């Protein structure tokens, strides 16, 4: 018989994995892994701000992530700094400011490990509400942007010439990613958010021949990783967030045993 908190952990993990699949696919296709990291690191600043201003922590995290997404959207248009340098500054700057502020708060004792590596076993009803409520909205938004986003992923200028509102779609996508990161943080922690985005997607690549199949497979593989990870964590008394990521990594390695499924053989011979 499952304990209540294990059930909640599973539900939360599955919810997060479902969202992470399609977003992670885009993160992989568009090489945004570092961008995801930056978003996640800034979440700690959100936590600190939440404590400082007595805000709901999830809300504060979402707020900071959104603001950073906008900053980066405009920041990447300048040509002064390469975008990975810019991301590095934002990423580590935000993380460090968050740590400094948290450490200097009087009378606040924060379980830093829970924020850095997640505390999936402490997922409560309210958290599930956030995950499935915001998660549903985020997935709906991605579905709405799906076709133009694919077009932009192939070639931005081509998409623009063909009438896609590239800037608007990109900005909306960044905001959705920020929301995703904010709710994922609960489960795997801000240091491991990117891993749950990219590892299942990278695993799914071998088995997919369309973008949609890859996104769905990534979700399913993520769910598997959550199940295996939580079971393992329970069984071996290991930290849950990292266990989920270990499970995802093992699944990735397992996937390498299968031949890559691309339809290379389908070329007709004239």
């Amino acid at each position, binding site marked *: 018989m499952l304990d209540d908190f294990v059930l909640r952990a599973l539900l939360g993990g599955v919810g997060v994995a479902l969202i992470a699949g399609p977003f992670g696919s885009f993160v992989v296709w568009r090489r945004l892994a570092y961008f995801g990291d930056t978003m996640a690191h800034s979440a700690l600043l959100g936590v600190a701000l939440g404590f400082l201003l007595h805000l709901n922590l999830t809300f504060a995290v979402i707020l900071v992530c959104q603001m950073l997404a906008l900053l980066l959207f405009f920041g990447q248009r300048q040509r002064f700094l390469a975008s990975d340098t810019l991301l590095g500054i934002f990423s580590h700057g935000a993380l460090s400011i968050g740590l400094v502020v948290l450490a200097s708060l009087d009378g606040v004792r924060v379980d830093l490990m829970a924020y850095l590596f997640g505390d999936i076993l402490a997922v409560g009803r309210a958290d599930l509400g956030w995950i499935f409520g915001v998660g549903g909205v985020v997935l709906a938004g991605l579905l709405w942007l799906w076709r133009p986003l694919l077009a932009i992923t192939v070639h931005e200028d081509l998409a623009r*010439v063909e009438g896609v509102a590239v800037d608007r779609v990109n900005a909306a996508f960044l905001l959705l990613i920020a929301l995703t990161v904010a709710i994922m943080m609960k489960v795997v922690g801000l240091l491991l958010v990117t891993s749950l985005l990219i590892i299942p997607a990278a695993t799914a690549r071998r088995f997919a021949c369309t973008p949609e199949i890859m996104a769905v497979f990534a979700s399913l593989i993520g769910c598997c990783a959550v199940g295996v990870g939580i079971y393992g964590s329970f069984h071996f008394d290991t930290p849950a967030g990292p266990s989920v990521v270990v499970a995802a990594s093992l699944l990735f390695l397992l996937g390498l045993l299968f031949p890559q499924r691309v*339809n*290379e053989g389908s070329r007709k011979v004239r």
Partner: protein
Amino acid sequence: MSSPEILLELTAITLIRGRRHLLQDIDLQLARGEIVTLIGPNGAGKTTLLRVALGLLAPTSGEVQRKAGVRIGYMPQQLQIDPTFPLTVKRFLAMNNRAQQERMLPLLEEVGADQVLDSPLQNLSGGEMQRVLLARALLREPELLVLDEPVQGVDVHGQIDLYQLISRVREQRNCAVLMVSHDLHLVMSATDRVLCLNGHICCSGTPEAVTSNPAFIEMFGLQAIESLAIYSHDKNHRHDNCSGCKDGSHAR
């Protein structure tokens, strides 16, 4: 014969980035049924001018006028698709074009790439990729085709084929073509007008007129020497005592 409809008109286009004048005072008119080719050395602003013409880049000064509602087919220089992005040619062609499947195959046959319909985009050869890109541009039934180095990464035979294909497309559809070419010679048989670009317009006109223009000879003479220099025995050769190259005798 009534004068054909103007689809694109650039007037006094200047583009300054920082202190560099990327484009300087460029005029260009493109009429229906006409093929105009931009040639010039690396960094001459060819692609920049295309992007200005497409409205992707705002010029510092000058005016871009496209015929209202003109349908544009654009073939970008290169697709850089991540190997993790699973995309077949069929899916690529269907993107952004509410094109029916039944139009796809005849078009691929027309450009000579029907055998790759179900292949992943990443598996195409250079020539196949260019043909598929052209097919995607043609799916929009364009009045104006904008091609950025359409023969890039294609061997010489393939280049001749592609230029012939572009001429055929123009004849059959009576669309205007604006293209960028790196190649100096093959393209001459496939174009009505040449614009020789090096930040500003060095010279322009029919291929015959341009190839005898001193400015053209100077530019291509130099460029021919530069490309020949790879095979040259004398690393310290100087352009000014290499007069043989200037008359274009190395032109192939």
